[in-house]
């Protein structure tokens, strides 16, 4: 699953660099994107969770050094909290002792992962006017997906089966929190850039629920959700920045189509992810599927709002949006080749 997500991140970087408006300095975008990609590749091939945590520390320090309105120290806080929680969780898993220690370890690893990505309840400080590269968005939509897949894979090797329930329950619990908190925040918040940020959280909520189910359908749903974040929501957010600054909502057909992509409606990638998630939840515990289905309705108002905030893409951006829509339709209609490639 991790190599596929790494390739998706590389594709997203390519789309961002090629179809960004000409006035944006591509060289710096490409430089920092490639640096992030190199870090992600190192995370994916790292043989142990210890090395993953150390690479995370390097990425956190490098990103915190970028020019920003926020202070260096402030920007480091959330990633360092994540690293400390992951390290403590891993240390608890390695110690011989009562089962409760293993459960504490599992809780620490999940909490650390959530803090690294910047999800509820460990939300990174966000400045809507900050550049995307220096903002918390790369943690959620660029580095986050391969990181989550790698950490969860490595964690499964160190967490004993006794603590597996606590691990899954934490993932599902935090997933539901982010799903509801993210979609409500995306709908109700005043600032459009913040609304986009909350929408990433909502998508992550579904992905975490999928990982927490620990069955094939759940993992498949999580993979498709992460792909829709990296190859759908992230490029669309990048290309919406100009319209967000101009604050001119538009109601063209393209805005409705973008809203449909963001809401996960058919035939886009989010749709099979939601169907698989509901199927997996029904197999495991049907009331969970009921809660998930009710929560999924919350995507509609926020997606319509985000679609309108996108403006009317022109020139290079219009080509980029068309490619993203095509990719999402492809993944939505034929998800099986990707799932087979990921061994699911």
């Amino acid at each position, binding site marked *: 699953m991790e190599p596929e997500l790494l390739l998706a991140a590389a594709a997203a970087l390519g789309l961002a660099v090629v179809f960004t408006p000409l006035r944006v300095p591509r060289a710096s975008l490409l430089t920092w994107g490639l640096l992030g990609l190199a870090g992600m590749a190192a995370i994916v091939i790292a043989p142990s969770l210890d090395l993953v945590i150390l690479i995370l520390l390097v990425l956190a320090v490098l990103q915190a*050094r*970028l020019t920003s309105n926020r202070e260096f120290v402030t920007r480091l806080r959330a990633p360092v909290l994540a690293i400390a929680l992951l390290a403590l969780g891993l240390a608890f898993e390695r110690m011989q002792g009562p089962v409760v220690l293993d459960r504490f370890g599992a809780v620490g690893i999940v909490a650390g992962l959530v803090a690294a990505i910047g999800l509820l309840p460990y939300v990174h400080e966000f400045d809507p006017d900050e550049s995307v590269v220096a903002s918390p968005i790369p943690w959620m939509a660029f580095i986050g997906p391969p990181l989550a897949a790698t950490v969860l894979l490595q964690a499964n090797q160190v967490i004993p089966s006794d603590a597996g329930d606590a691990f899954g329950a934490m993932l599902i619990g935090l997933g539901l929190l982010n799903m509801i908190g993210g979609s409500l925040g995306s709908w109700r918040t005043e600032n459009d850039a913040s609304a986009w940020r909350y929408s990433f959280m909502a998508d992550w909520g579904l992905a975490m629920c999928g990982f927490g189910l620990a069955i094939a359908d759940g993992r498949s749903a999580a993979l498709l959700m992460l792909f829709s974040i990296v190859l759908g929501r992230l490029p669309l957010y990048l290309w919406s920045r100009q319209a967000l600054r101009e604050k001119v909502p538009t109601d063209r057909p393209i805005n409705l189509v973008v809203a449909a992509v963001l809401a996960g409606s058919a035939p886009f990638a989010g749709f099979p992810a939601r169907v698989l998630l509901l199927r997996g939840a029904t197999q495991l515990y049907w009331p969970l599927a009921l809660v998930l289905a009710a929560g999924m309705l919350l995507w509609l108002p926020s997606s319509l709002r985000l679609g309108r905030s996108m403006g009317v893409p022109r020139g290079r951006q219009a080509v980029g949006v068309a490619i993203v829509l095509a990719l999402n339709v492809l993944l939505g209609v034929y998800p099986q080749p990707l799932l087979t490639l990921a061994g699911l």
Partner: protein
Amino acid sequence: MVEAAFVAWVGAALVVLADGRRGLALGLVLLTAGLAVLASPAGMAFGAVAIAAGGLVAAGQCLRSGPASWGIMPAGSTPRLIICIASGLLALWVAASVTSGTGAPLRFAVLLVVGLMGARILISHEPGAVLAAIASLALALGVAPGLAATSPGPVAAIVGALIAAGVVFVPAGLARLASIPLADKDGA
């Protein structure tokens, strides 16, 4: 080994309590010495050398930047002192009483240093102190694989040492690169 764990505690406490470059550097030296000694019996002899080298480079660089003073326990540092003592007692209880098996000093040191450095970064506003705390955190993460039942090899220790040595040099170089305007009118 118990002595090494105690030295690591004193070093970590100094990094938390000091605001001046001399205090931070001394804390890093003591922390490095403690962790390097604890790493050797955990099957990481080469890793211990790397930890020592990385920690000393970080301490040396730390001594060259920031306010030229000790700055240990300035006014208003009572909460930090309480954190140092309380986290030490908590880590001691977990390492010696809750958990079992050999390697209690290493368990104590890893839990303590990771916890204290996390707290230091969360409560601090000074970039110099934060970089010293990050270097200390990297060293602790480098020796943490020694807690595993099987010998972990020196890779994590070497990477941790490289990060500790490198992180204190980061600001100047990257600040220049980052001065490229990343957010123009189009906001990307």
